[in-house]
């Protein structure tokens, strides 16, 4: 499957990556190769194999609803690149892209 420049630019935008023209060309080729490699699987006849939702042999793993102490705030913020007023501080993000 051939990945074009526009698709690479779209994926880069979603991943918040700033790519140069050379990189876009490079990754378009590499992503196409990766998809082709994975695409070989489509040649297999999987008609008799039930769909697999998870490779884990586990089902229904729960924990009881009991609260435990959280991290001290200093520890929570210790590795933050920047913090202020007990909060993580990041560059302004005004575009309200967050979802509920």
């Amino acid at each position, binding site marked *: 499957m051939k990945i074009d420049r526009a698709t690479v630019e779209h994926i880069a935008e979603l991943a918040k990556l700033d790519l140069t023209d050379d990189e876009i060309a490079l990754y378009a080729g590499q992503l196409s190769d990766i998809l082709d490699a994975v695409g070989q699987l489509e040649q297999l006849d999987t008609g008799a194999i039930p769909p697999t939702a998870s490779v884990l042999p586990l089902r229904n793993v729960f924990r009881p609803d009991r609260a435990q102490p959280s991290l001290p705030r200093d520890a929570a913020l210790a590795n933050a690149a920047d913090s202020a*007023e007990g909060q993580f501080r990041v560059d302004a993000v005004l575009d309200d892209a967050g979802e509920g």
Partner: protein
Amino acid sequence: MVAYEPVIGLEVHAELLTESKMFCTCAVVDSTSAEPNTVVCPVCLAMPGVLPVINRKAVEFGLMVGLALNCEIPAFNQFARKSYFYPDLPKGYQISQYEYPLAINGWLEIDLPDGSTKRIGIRRAHLEEDTGKLTHVDGHSLVDLNRAGVPLLEIVSEADIRSAEEAEAYARKLRAILQYLGVNSGDMSKGVLRMEPNISVRPVGSDDLRTRTEIKNLNSIRSLARASAYEIERQIALYEAGESVQQATMGWDEARQVTVTQRVKESSEDYRYFPEPDLPVLELDRAWIEAVRAGLPELPDAKRDRLMAEHGLSRYDASVLVAQRAVADYYEQALAAGGDPKQVANYLIGDVFRQMNLEGRERDDIGAILLTPQALAELVTLVRQGAINHGVAKQLIETLYAEGGSPARLVEQRGLAQVSDESVIGEAVATVLDEHPDEVARYLAGEEKLIKFLMGMVMRALKGKGDAQVVQRQLAAQLEARRK
């Protein structure tokens, strides 16, 4: 001019009132008042190497809602990663459900103003985690992750809603159900319940689904109704002017009472969902589901029907009483204290709500008023026993609402006991009739409505405490006696 009809669907996010978060053991706290980042841990901070584990209670709460909304609970359930980069979730994705939600294909019945009912379809309800909160200050954003990971149930209706009034009725009914189930406080102003309508309009009779907009930032059901009505009119005006509606996320400006464009959606979102590899799938035990179903409390519609059947309340009164769980609880406590069901309903809906409206108090907050359900029951009983009349009862509600206390003691202290003595009332009637010869003559000449005026004058003479029935009887008798 073409007639238009709106096509509305509602997406509701309800935080679940669990003790701990969805996938970690941090406590769920009031994120509007807690110190920032005091209930966070490696899991909800997305530190490397951590593993989420599903909170069983959150699944149970989700099941309760699904079953209360008449949904099917599929045998197979799976969580999925919804990928997006935004600092409100440090993982770079939200754990949600996509292809295999917890509950599907349900419905909710709403009451329409003309007295009929309508079923609004519930497309799905799925579990996910809430996001953190951002505050924007001078070129930076501050991130508080207390709310990140709080269990959230997303409830999506079908686009069956056809007016702002129906949207409001749906929202009220859904909120009441969540409150009755005890899974959500229903407090939209704190953001624990968020409702987002998506709205389009089309010519009546057409089947097409036109471009829709979505409204966010609604902090009350009243705002939801107003914003929806505004947005419907805005879209109709655009079509009437020959323009088109642009797909966008709108915000509701509470101060100006208008919707404003927040973000234009140029392309559909690309969340790259895939099955969450950190969480094993769910194959919910049917016995568990049936146990949850059997344990559901009485829900608003059932309570309304019971109040009508057991106490002879009108459908309207019963609907008003069950609309908020706090009001239903208050009403039932007053009945438990011996109050007459119909009289309690009348004074509650008429006089107590009036006081609450004057104070600007929400009905959800009725549990905190100084007039206790026991005092209201006592007051109603005093009226029934003839110890006080209706007018005095209304006055007392004002006093008890403002100051609390015991109705019986207030009646005694203020000398408000009803005057039923025939001779006292007879004397007052005679005096009033002597003082108003004109009105008496006009009444006797056929102007019968003047009896209300005369009745008022007698009541005033009795300082409002007269027994209305005795006053009425005496008045009629003495007027007839003056007919020559």
